[in-house]
């Protein structure tokens, strides 16, 4: 078991024939992901990396039965691409592209929710179920199969965390990079619940950052719903307070989203919080015994 994706997940790539799309689709294929085709408008009918290219997501879904999409289109087209996937019946869209306008993502997320499509990202490394399915840009070789679920806002901290878990002799069920943009798809709460319900996952690593209050919400959720051990690290304890022009952004949630606030909230929810990311592996060993 694992969450969200596995060896049977059929994946298409939006922005298939572009430079980034091509490079990473190739890496995913090599990893074993079932990439069944891709979409690039006006290139329908061609073949790319040995897979069919379609003009629209609808055509691609009809022809291949894909349920997941990996999105690599340029930033200005991300909103449109997500809405197209949602309307074509895709169940999970993984948005890798960095720099999509927030207003576009706001509309795209609302459309995805309305159509019952889950999203991951944007501006994220993607999702990987170890040794089965990689939909993203992470180096696949560091994710050994095991019993630890991982959720992270940061790409490179996902790699760092997974690597330490594996070096301690454990492994990963599924790792999800949720991204740190103002509007994101699946967040800690939903993913924590999925890992809680997954038989194979025995512990969860959660990596957060300063800003916003998703980690605070996660802490409340863990206290009430999660019985599996959770290890957490919050990046940015030493980050200086930003020179913001106005104050409006920070007070929305009634908190400034400092690392300390988040660490305290998680600790009081029974989470094993580490002060340095270099301690993640050891902490996992401690909670799993």
């Amino acid at each position, binding site marked *: 078991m694992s969450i969200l994706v596995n060896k049977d997940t059929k994946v298409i790539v939006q922005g298939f024939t572009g430079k980034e799309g091509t490079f990473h689709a190739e890496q995913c294929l090599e990893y074993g992901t079932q990439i069944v085709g891709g979409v690039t408008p006006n290139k329908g009918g061609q073949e790319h990396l040995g897979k069919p290219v379609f003009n629209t997501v609808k055509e691609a879904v009809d022809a291949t039965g894909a349920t997941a999409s990996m999105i690599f289109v340029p930033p200005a087209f991300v909103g449109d691409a997500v809405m197209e996937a949602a309307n074509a019946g895709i169940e999970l869209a993984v948005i890798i592209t960095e720099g999509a306008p927030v207003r576009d993502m706001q509309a795209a997320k609302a459309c995805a929710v309305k159509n019952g499509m889950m999203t991951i990202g944007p501006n994220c490394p993607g999702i990987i179920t170890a040794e089965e399915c990689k939909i993203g840009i992470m180096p696949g070789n560091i994710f050994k199969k095991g019993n630890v679920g991982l959720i992270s806002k940061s*790409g490179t901290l996902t790699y760092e965390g997974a690597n330490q878990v594996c070096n301690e002799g454990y492994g990963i069920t599924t790792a999800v990079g949720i991204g740190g943009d103002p509007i994101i798809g699946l967040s800690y709460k939903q993913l924590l619940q999925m890992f809680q319900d997954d038989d194979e996952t025995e512990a969860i690593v959660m990596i957060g*950052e300063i800003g916003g209050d998703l980690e605070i919400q996660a802490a409340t959720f863990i206290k009430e719903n999660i019985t599996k051990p959770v290890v957490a690290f919050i990046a940015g*304890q030493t980050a200086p307070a930003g020179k*913001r022009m106005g104050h409006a952004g920070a007070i929305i949630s009634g908190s400034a989203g400092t690392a300390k606030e988040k660490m305290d909230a998680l600790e009081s929810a029974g989470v094993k919080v580490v002060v340095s990311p270099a301690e993640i592996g050891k902490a996992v060993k401690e909670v799993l015994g």
Partner: protein
Amino acid sequence: MNIHEYQAKQIFAKYGVPTPKGIIANTPDEAVANAKELGGNIWVVKAQIHAGGRGLGGGVKLAKSLDEVRELADEILGMTLVTHQTGPEGKLVQKVYIEEGADIVDELYLSVVLDRAAEMPIIMASTEGGMDIETVAHETPEKIIKIAIDPSFGFQGFHGRELVFGLGITDKQEQGKMIKFAKALYDVYMDNDAEMIEINPLIKTASGDFMALDGKMGFDDSALGRHPDIEAMRDISEEDADEREASQYGLSYIALDGEIGCMVNGAGLAMGTMDTINYMGGTPANFLDVGGTASAETVAKGFEIILKNPNVKAIFVNIFGGIVRCDRIANGILEATKMVDVNVPVVVRLDGTNAAEAAVILQNANIDNVITATDLGDGAAKAVAAAKGE
């Protein structure tokens, strides 16, 4: 990206958000000419910098004669204004905004920002105008009204009613004016891909009109491509020179006051590296994210920027290669040592994609002051020791 008050008011005016009349000045002569053109017998001379708290810092003053306009413009132009948002180093004032005086009977607060939890824009309003809104939120949170607006339906009548009744506005004409004001401000926010708009204070005049006495706007950097008119308002003198230089090379750099220079890929790992250095008893000298497309040239540039800081006693290069290939970083380090005089110890930890090739490159190069590390903890410990001269 942020803009100045006078620029925000130019945008407001286009949408019919009322503001006092004003003209921007670069010199005391221009200030006096502007005051004459505006007419009247009372003016406000306002320093234009990208920070709040200008009034308390002495950057906003009232003039009751043209001579006073000249005196105040002369005093404020060229001053280094220190406010709670500028940091202790302050900001140099290069422009003043000359504005007609206003007859204030009440001060309110109004802003539009994204509510991340609701995933839609929110209008925030308060009767406590002129005060620091964070203080209001902390001490009297019940005095802040929050109204979320779903962009798929837009600003509706009920949003307006919630706003005016929340603010205790009972006069029907005034209600209409306030609703029109807020709706226009919401349009400014949506049309221009703003990140936030804040008006503090929003004043009520003796004649029962509402006006934006101040205006702050920040924009979504990712959307600037479709707003060339906004991009044209960029004031590069408001941005840190080193940060700006770094950004031209795809590097994200923020100076700090410690001793260990950091070069890391990814913002999360960069912060995590700073935290680890701190945990091991050292102090980070900067935040530097080399991004996803680091080349030999960008790495060399990173070294150059880090070494400009005279406090740096050691550098910690911490790369977990995903998209970034470690061999490229290793070559970048070799290049850097040729292009820049790297006169402090450099601790290098390269892991992930092509880490083995990178190790061979560094080993063969055999550079004096390069110390290799096996993992994050090991690297941070070595960097802390090196900075202490151990």
